[in-house]
């Protein structure tokens, strides 16, 4: 499969695990893009997210470490209590800057840096959640000409986050869970 230069970033909060369990395990073994994921989790020492999803996904799953090169075909979760950013040299960096909308990791921080790093080759996805984090970040990806996807609020466990994203960036594609999977796969097939 041809590895294109793009990347996918996904942000989710309340109801995240269930939604991600529908999306991430559905990505095929040959999925060629790096997938960055921010889930709002309380600052615990170790996150169980990478372990949980590693057992269920067909592509590799890891938690980010600072300065690590971006790996294609790999899902990378932001660690608890750190922001995760993408550098233009395609490495990951972390920060302990202030929380954004009470959230660290923050979806805005990831998306805004990813928009800078990947420009139009970036795809941003906002899923279920109960606050406004991610709306500015999705807009940043949209402004760079990247693809923007928002979970249909009617299908979301918590509607506030997808609704905030749509209010801030109305031209995003509004999709249900299964369509999000199809769209992520179709984009790299074409």
């Amino acid at each position, binding site marked *: 499969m041809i590895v294109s230069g793009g990347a996918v970033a996904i942000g989710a909060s309340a109801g995240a695990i269930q939604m991600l369990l529908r999306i991430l395990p559905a990505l095929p073994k040959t999925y060629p893009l790096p997938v960055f994921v921010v889930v709002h989790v309380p600052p615990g020492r170790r996150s169980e997210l990478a372990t949980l999803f590693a057992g269920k996904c067909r592509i590799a799953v890891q938690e980010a470490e600072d300065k690590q090169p971006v790996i294609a075909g790999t899902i990378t979760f932001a660690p608890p209590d750190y922001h995760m950013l993408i550098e*233009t040299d395609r490495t990951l960096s972390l920060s*302990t800057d202030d929380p954004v909308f009470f959230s660290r990791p923050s979806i805005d921080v990831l998306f805004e*840096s990813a928009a800078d790093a990947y420009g139009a080759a970036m795809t941003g996805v906002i899923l279920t959640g109960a606050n406004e984090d991610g709306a500015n970040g999705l807009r940043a990806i949209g402004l760079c000409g990247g693809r923007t996807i928002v979970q249909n609020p009617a299908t979301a466990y918590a509607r506030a986050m997808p609704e905030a994203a749509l209010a801030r960036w109305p031209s995003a594609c509004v999709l249900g869970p299964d369509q999000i999977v199809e769209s992520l796969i179709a984009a790299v097939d074409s």
Partner: protein
Amino acid sequence: MDAALTVMDELTTEDIEIRLLLEALYRRYHYDFRNYAQASIKRRLRQARQQLGVATFSALQDRLLHDPEAASRVVRLLTVQVSDFFRDPGYFRAIREKVVPHLKTYPSLKVWIAGCSAGEELHSFAILFREEGLEDRTLFYATDINQSALDAAAQGIYPISRLQAFTENHRLSGGRSSLSDYYTTGYGGAVFDKSLRERVVFSDHSLVTDAVFSEMHLISCRNVMIYFDRQLQDRALGLFSDSLIRNGFLGLGSKESLRFSARADDFVDFVKDEKIYQRRMA
């Protein structure tokens, strides 16, 4: 009328502006952020742009060059860090249980808290060393490039609202005393006992431009180098390597790693999960 020039695409306009701004800050004020990790510095510069009410990074640069007070504000914004007492209790538990027994074999100790910001980690170490009976033989160096953070560290006053989390972290780190033994409260703040800072040298020191200044048994530098690019991280790690005695200890943040560094071979894992390393024998 002349045709507009073609925009060459390699760097975005913003990236060019940021490089020039950081160069200006260095040339004019000798604060060197040129090798900081780009993504975070850009984020902070966007905040600075907003706070100073200017539209572009070029305009921000103009302001910084001609207005030292604004420059000082921006430098503060670029260097401010917030930590907690006993952040990542597992780290301090590992220091207590695995590193302290080694430190007890030395008659005198030097400990460097590099990038101490407002002193949360310094006070954590001072309390831990008192609990473990090492305080009297230890000299602490607490360094940062942010002078107002150093001043705050030397004052040792923290908001009462943060005490609950501090206390819980201290307990989880295996604390042998009550955190409340070390502070008194008043005027909305908790003032930590000045005896904790009696054996501390506070100093303005830059990991970017300054050199080795003493021989250390333990260096703790956590979540500081995440703001550096790899080249600068290697410089700082070289500084730590040159500062440590043989078999001296280096503690990093929980998501930092030597794996991607050119200086990785200077160190061996000591407590792998807690990112505590030991200086390799020469």
